[in-house]
């Protein structure tokens, strides 16, 4: 392992993308993800890559579509309002079965919202965002090291399944500096004989397209894509368990909310409360099975999120009403303190909390 360096999450992510073979980045400035674009602007020209500041987020995601169609690793990054603008293009990526990486360093919403950290795009990332039947692979890093590692993972999974992948980070993950070892993760390469690179380079004509006026054909395309989604749900779920062995209350949290919750879990243990945590690393596919199994052991779940309660729905679906689910969240860019989470845990223990 190489010596660790101190780096911002946004920069570690950008460096990882380059190390993962991405040479085509298209973006548009927006706080708090701008360091990704700035890093790419500095590095790409020196390594023969493309950094292009597009005229809008819409143009940027469509440039990603063009580059991804051409078989190269392409990415864009933005923050919440910008991701809304990209949603049309993301739906097209899914419909055209194109691999690409989209980074959302979330900020508070809706509308122009604020610029402070948030997780309020959970629904948008995991339930669609754009139109149509599709999923994104959604990775939720909780450290600068994971910002780095998940970038490789995102590109690899996108290429493997021909689906767009998203890194759902937030303002703290982007802005924070932590030690990170910049050891290249595996860069997997997959067949891209479908790419539009000119008929001189492959048999027949390649067409990248999401249109079909035949309902039967479009249904067939969707079903075949969902077969791949089923494989992803089976094989690619990632999560971390923390102090779950004897836990009676299970916190479910991702990203920065999981970091805060970890402190609360430790504090609760000091009080004698048996609390553990499941941290989904993939938000889609969601770690349904592990939560469902945990429901056989624990008394209750507490979903901790920087929003008004979005993942809590998925926790409830996953544990299938076996045990009560509670929610604690802050929104608009406010980050909860470990004490707030601890007090939510105490309320559950005392039977004073209201179920989700």
């Amino acid at each position, binding site marked *: 392992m190489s010596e660790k360096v101190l780096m911002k999450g946004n920069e570690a992510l950008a460096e990882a993308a380059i190390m993962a073979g991405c040479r085509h980045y298209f973006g548009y400035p927006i706080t708090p993800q701008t360091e990704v674009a700035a890093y790419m602007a500095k590095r790409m020209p020196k390594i023969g890559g493309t950094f*292009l500041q597009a005229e809008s987020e819409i*143009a940027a995601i469509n*440039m990603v*579509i*063009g580059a991804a169609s051409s078989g190269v690793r392409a990415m864009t990054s933005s923050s919440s309002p910008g991701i809304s603008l990209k949603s049309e293009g993301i739906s097209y990526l899914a419909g055209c079965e194109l691999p690409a990486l989209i980074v959302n360093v979330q900020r508070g919403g809706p509308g122009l919202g604020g610029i402070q950290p948030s997780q309020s795009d959970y629904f948008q990332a995991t339930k669609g965002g754009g139109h149509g039947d599709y999923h994104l692979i959604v990775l939720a890093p909780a450290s600068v090291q994971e910002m780095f590692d998940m970038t490789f993972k995102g590109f690899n999974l996108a290429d493997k399944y021909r689906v767009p992948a998203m890194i759902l980070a937030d303002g703290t993950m982007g802005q924070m500096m932590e030690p990170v070892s910049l050891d290249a993760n595996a860069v997997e390469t997959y067949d891209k004989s479908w790419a539009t690179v000119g*008929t*001189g380079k492959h048999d027949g004509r390649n067409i*990248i397209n999401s249109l079909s006026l035949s309902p039967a054909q479009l249904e067939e395309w969707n079903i075949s894509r969902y077969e791949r989604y089923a494989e992803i749900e089976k094989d690619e779920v990632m999560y971390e368990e923390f102090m779950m062995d004897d836990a009676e209350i299970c916190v479910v949290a991702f990203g920065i909310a999981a970091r805060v919750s970890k402190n609360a879990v430790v504090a609760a243990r000091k009080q004698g409360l048996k609390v553990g945590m499941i941290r989904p690393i993939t938000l889609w596919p969601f770690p349904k099975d592990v939560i469902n199994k945990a429901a056989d052991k624990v008394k209750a779940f507490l979903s901790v999120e920087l929003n008004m309660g979005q993942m809590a729905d998925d926790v409830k679906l996953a544990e299938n009403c076996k045990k009560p689910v509670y929610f604690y969240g802050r929104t608009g860019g406010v980050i909860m303190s470990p004490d707030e989470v601890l007090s939510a845990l105490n309320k559950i223990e005392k039977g004073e909390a209201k179920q989700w």
Partner: protein
Amino acid sequence: MVVFEKTKGLTDAPLHYCPGCTHGIIHRLVAESLAELGVLDKTVGVASVGCSVFSYNYFNCDMIQAAHGRAPAVATGAKRAHPENVVFTYQGDGDLAAIGTAETVHAAARNENITVIFVNNAIYGMTGGQMAPTTLPNQVTQTSPYGRDVTVVGYPVKVCEMLSQVTGASYLERVAVNNVKNIRAAKKAIKHAFENQIAGKGFSLIEVLSTCPTNWGLSPKEALKWLDENMETYYPLGVYKDKYKEEK
């Protein structure tokens, strides 16, 4: 003896365009140009949304179907990924001059080394004849049933004139396909646009005045005449910019 042959630049798929529509001619001119330049096997076309949405079935090269208005951005991505390829977009007036204005202007501003074929028939055809950004003043459409009232919805967008003010753009020409002379000129312009790209000269846009007999409510023959009498006066033909010619 001259034997008429179908160009290799088009597939055998039957075109879906209405009788009398001049999209077919424009397809042929684009396809012929690519075939004659010997670049079909390294060409990537970008289809847009509108009547020409299915053009990915017709051009005998790799094709990408883009979202409404976004073809120049998609083409930018494709060209940046493989600069050695020839990349073109084929867009209608709604796609290019309404929803896709920003993508068009900025691709031109960047002098993106792509070729844009812009088919202007002054109406939205695919959706059944609504007002386009290029619909003429007083022209009747489904959404301007009393004629385009410029005091309410403003004036048509003149794309070549507008882009001629964009420093980045290299080559802009407006042509028409309503008679043999114009078709020959159109072919020359389209081919020149591709030659420019191959020579690395940057952004070319060829605006082709085209007919829509179905939605204009005219016979094919009347439509050709209507184009001549109404569109050409509002949208004069000619070269609006040729950066490299100016430099010579």
